[in-house]
């Protein structure tokens, strides 16, 4: 590699230097070329299904390792009231334009019902007043957006596990799917899904209040999900229905959520 070929021995020092410089230029150019090719190559890899599926296997590792470390019951950090963010930044849909939502909002959600169905013994249809009169949990937690920012807010609402017990979850149910009234792309309704570990976690709420006030439109009025040990996109806003299912392959894109159908991991614990 570093040994020069015998024919070079006769060359003068000057020619040698020039030759080395030419080689160096060549090396630099090929490095730049390789970098450009590398970038294009990485973009192509990022669109290759086999590569995506191989790299995506880390999601299973994340889920299993985190479940092992965090267990079923460990609680998300709760903060003192002094740490509540002055403005809880709304993200995603902040003002749903669907006819369904506009009509319900115009009447202050008096006609709105949260339906609980699918693999349950007793399907439910709960009004906002019913949900507000149920025993509530209040918690001041940190909301972490997948984009990287965090905000702290105080959430109140019934614990999801209580509602699921009221409906009576059948043994065949493996996931809880949340159906929403908003459409981020103007075509597909937002939806999300969580498994039974997340669903029956003591801090998993159907929140009707933020910082002691009824949930503002920007943050998901009249009711949103809180799954405190996962990222923000799991916490569906503008809820209209909950279904218990054995699998979610047949719902929209089949990946278990609006963002999951668009490449985000289903498990959002990190």
């Amino acid at each position, binding site marked *: *590699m*570093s040994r020069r070929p015998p024919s070079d021995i006769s060359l003068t020092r000057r020619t040698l230097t020039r030759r080395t410089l030419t080689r160096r230029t060549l090396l630099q150019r090929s490095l730049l070329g390789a*970098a450009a090719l590398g*970038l*294009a190559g*990485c*973009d192509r890899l*990022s669109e290759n299904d086999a590569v*995506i599926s*191989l*790299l*995506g*296997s*880390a*999601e299973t*590792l*994340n889920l299993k390792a*985190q479940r092992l*470390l*965090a*267990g079923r019951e*460990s*609680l*998300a*950090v709760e*903060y003192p009231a002094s*740490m509540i*963010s002055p*403005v809880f*930044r709304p993200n995603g849909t902040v003002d749903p334009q669907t006819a369904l939502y506009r009509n319900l909002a115009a009447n202050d959600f008096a006609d709105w019902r949260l339906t609980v169905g699918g693999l349950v013994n007793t399907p439910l249809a709960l009004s906002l007043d019913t949900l507000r009169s149920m025993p509530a949990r209040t918690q001041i937690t*940190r909301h*972490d*957006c*997948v*984009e*990287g*920012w*965090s*905000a*702290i807010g105080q959430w109140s609402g019934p614990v999801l596990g209580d509602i699921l017990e009221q409906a009576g979850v059948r043994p065949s149910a493996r996931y809880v799917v949340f159906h929403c009234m908003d459409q981020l792309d103007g075509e597909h309704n937002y939806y999300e899904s969580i498994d039974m570990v997340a669903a029956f976690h003591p801090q998993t709420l159907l929140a009707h209040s933020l910082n002691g006030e009824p949930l503002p439109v920007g943050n998901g009025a009249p009711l949103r999900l809180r799954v*405190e*040990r*996962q*990222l923000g996109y799991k916490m569906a806003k503008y809820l209209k229905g909950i279904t218990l299912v054995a699998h979610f392959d047949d719902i929209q894109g089949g990946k278990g959520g609006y*963002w999951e159908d*668009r*490449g*985000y*991991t289903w498990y959002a*614990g*990190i």
Partner: protein
Amino acid sequence: MSTHTAVRHFFRGMGMPEHTPDHGRSRRLRHRLPVRAWHWINLWCMIVLLLSGLQIFNAHPALYWGSASHFDAPWLEMYAMRGADGSVHGVTALGPWQFTTTGVLGYSGESVRGFPAWVTLPSYQFLSMGRVWHFFFAWLFAISGALFALYALWTGHFRRNFWLSGRDWRGLGRDIINHLKLRFHAHSGKYNSLQKLSYLSVVFVALPLMIVTGLCMSPTINAAAPWLLDLFGGRQSARSIHFITAFSLVLFAVVHVAMVLLSHPLRQLRGMITGRVPRRSSSSEPESPS
């Protein structure tokens, strides 16, 4: 050297002592196989983790201290601004200072983005894919790091080659002066004090810090180990420290490569690939493992 020989040399050296002149052969063993393997795995992990990390950073190119984001007071922020003449400028704000960084930070390739396309993976804005790359290579990095840590503990790799002796500490001043003069004459193929200190801080401070602050950004890990979050002063602080440590690792890599280039690059490269370097033909030839 043929590829075959290179491959054969790469796999030689398991269990042989390091830095011991091998008088029977024309080459000396410089780096053992686990060291070389870890070095090159780390190189790839660090490239992918850095580029995908910048992709993730670009989803919200601002950093804060504390638990939550105080959106009006990031300590570092990249954004775009339209000037009076209608042209768009990239701006990087660091504390109270603002810098115009058009074409690199804040605004590049005619789009509003923190870091430019040529340092993000994928090159275009694609947060979910950046995360997929990042977590896969984070596992690779953590597993290979854990295996290497076991090997290093077992063989005393760091104690033997990197622990600073009294002589090393006393020679530190001289080493700094020599480095400032760009004189890298090391003694007998051993690491000098500055090298030892920088490798020790990378291996025992920076790399573990990357993993732990990375985990601190996970809400599930926060529930499992709230004390870790307290240690770094909150999730946004952990995110900032993750970024700063990554930046310091980039600086380390730049200096590391510069040092190799300044001290017999091909010989060094050969040492890290085959494990062996040619014996010195004369005592005047400087030698320094980088």
